[in-house]
């Protein structure tokens, strides 16, 4: 498939941060050789899941062109984001890629009315020539998320509920009619009874508005509920990616297995297996600095080779998994030991 058929094409991106003083200090690789893409003509929800500190947010900053990669390229509609320099070009790009953030009460300033943001967005992006026309654009966007301008106008963020505010922030993102929405933990601050409201909304946007969504979360249960494909991140790598049913129903990578096992089942009958002891990393810096597979320190199936070099990406059916267990090496080294 050529690059032109991709909406978003992330090619081998790496981001390195220098931490510590001017002299000395160390290098932290926050995103390490990550590649994935979204198709142009098939809107989908792609989930990036992983623990805190796994590089999810750094990756999202790359896609929003808020940060340039140290190595590699991010292409949007076939164009390298690094070549976007002019203000007008950046604005065009922003129209097509919009973010939704974690905490709806931080998205909107408590001192400004919610609809002011919506009008500003409509006028700044040139979606309407004047305020009256903008009202229509804003109302359309609000109706797409199950609100209306009447409900929101002249209200401050604290006068709306958490669910309503988060829906208003999705509406704000929809005003410029984007092709891609990047939602960074959009439900983790929302109450349980309203969480499904937001998640259902994303599903609807994909099906009706044909918007692709990158859903960043550590909540695997909602990820399973709405997404088509998923990428599991660990310390800067995507360790396993593919269709969500394949990955979450039959995980291959030991880390994915641990993640899924750790999701508490909302049913008391699973208590015993969940209470099985696991080992946790003591410090984050230790795992980032590890040579070879970053999970080697906690992996129950660790082999010698895991501590020596980065595991390669292995294609197994429809998924990619970054683990020595599935390489030729493992099959030759221990035939019969694999279950």
């Amino acid at each position, binding site marked *: 498939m050529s690059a032109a058929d991709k909406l978003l094409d992330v090619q081998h991106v790496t981001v390195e941060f220098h931490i510590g003083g001017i002299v000395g200090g160390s290098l932290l690789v926050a995103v390490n050789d990550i590649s994935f893409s979204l198709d142009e003509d098939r809107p989908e929800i792609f989930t990036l899941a*992983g*623990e*805190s*500190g796994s590089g999810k947010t750094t990756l999202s900053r790359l896609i929003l062109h808020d940060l340039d990669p140290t190595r590699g390229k991010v292409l949007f509609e076939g164009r390298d984001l690094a070549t976007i320099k002019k203000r007008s070009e950046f604005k065009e790009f922003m129209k097509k890629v919009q973010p939704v953030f974690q905490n709806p009460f931080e998205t909107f300033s408590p001192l400004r009315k919610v609809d002011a943001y919506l009008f500003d967005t409509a006028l700044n992006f040139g979606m309407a020539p004047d305020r009256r026309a903008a009202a229509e654009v804003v109302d359309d966007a609000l109706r797409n998320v199950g609100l209306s301008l009447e409900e929101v106008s002249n209200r401050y963020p604290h006068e709306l*509920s*958490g*669910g*309503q505010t988060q829906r208003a922030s999705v509406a704000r993102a929809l005003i410029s009619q984007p092709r891609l929405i990047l939602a960074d933990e959009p439900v983790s601050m929302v*109450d*349980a*009874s*309203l*969480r*499904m*409201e937001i*998640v*259902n909304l994303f599903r609807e946007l994909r099906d009706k508005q044909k918007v692709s969504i990158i859903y960043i979360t*550590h*909540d*695997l*249960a*909602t990820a*399973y*509920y709405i997404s088509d494909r998923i990428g599991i991140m660990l310390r800067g790598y995507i360790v396993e990616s593919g269709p969500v049913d394949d990955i*979450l*129903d039959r995980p291959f990578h030991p880390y994915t297995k*641990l*993640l*899924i096992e*750790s*999701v*508490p*089942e*909302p*049913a*008391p009958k*699973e*208590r015993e297996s*969940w*209470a099985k*002891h*696991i*080992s*946790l*990393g*003591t*410090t*984050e*810096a230790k795992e980032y600095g590890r040579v070879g597979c970053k999970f080697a320190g906690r992996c129950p199936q660790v082999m010698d080779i895991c501590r020596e070099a980065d595991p390669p990406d292995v294609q197994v059916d429809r998924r990619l998994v970054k683990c020595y267990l599935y390489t030729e090496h493992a099959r030759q080294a221990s035939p019969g030991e694999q279950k």
Partner: protein
Amino acid sequence: MALLSVKNLCAYYQFEMYGISRTVRAIDGVSFELYPNEIYGVAGESSCGKTTLIKVISGNIKPPLKINSGSIDYQFGSYNVDMLTVSKEEMRRNVRWKQISYVMQGSMSVLNPVRKIIKTFEDIVDTHEPIKDKKKFLQEATAHVNRLGLPTEVLNSYPHQLSGGMRQRVAIALATVFQPRLILADEPTTALDVVVQRGVLQMLKDIQAMSSNTVLLVTHDMAVHANVANRVMIMYAGRIAEEAPTEIIFNAPLHPYTQHLIRSLPMIGERSNKASLRGTPPNLANPPSGCRFHERCPDVMDICRTEVPEMATVRGQHRVACHLVKESSL
């Protein structure tokens, strides 16, 4: 014998400003008991009064929070404490941290960022029981940390050097130095991801099993209650909606709010449509009349709009406040 019995507790936030007074009825007529050797879960949305409940039963009652009526009685073996009359000095010396300790949501704010963990241990222990022998204290602290499965080097680290999960476990270790009878845990794992959450909750469970004390676990995450709690209380808008052993709450809930909460939980391996509740949580400064859930309830009846449903015991430890239940059992 109950460790804690709370009867008819009403705790309001009362504001008085420029002649306008405003009352937020955060806890309104709550009665329950905690027993030794159990994990008691409290669930509910934000602003339903969970944190106020913890504040009140831990004796952290400062204006504008006031207790309007009700009682809070503790029985620590032969030592009884009435939370409404106990003196500050008595609280500091004998109750706080010795009998009741508190694990908070953001462990970052508990630990002093410019002091090593061992110094924070020292500060806390010294407040309640002056340290005479430093060496012995160090030995005891090390033994305590090791008993909880944490590496010794944790004590000599600064908070920023530890991962989020390790910090939260250190906060739990700090809360358990005196082997308290009751541990109040307010959303101890909400900011953490699933793997770390599992590790932290396992540690909390281990501690509870080791010293057979009581843990009051507050979280809005029902899945956590399913895996950790023995009994669960569901709060809605400052009142108890339902209270029952965990199995019953999940398998046979009676209150429409509980039923909705359980039904809307997403699960891996199942993708049926999950609906959300209509409406928004009520404003506690001006709560709805009658049952506070009636505006959002799918099974609302006329009586719900006017009359507050009484707490009724269905069977054994299962209590529920809903007109529907009374109707059907009569």
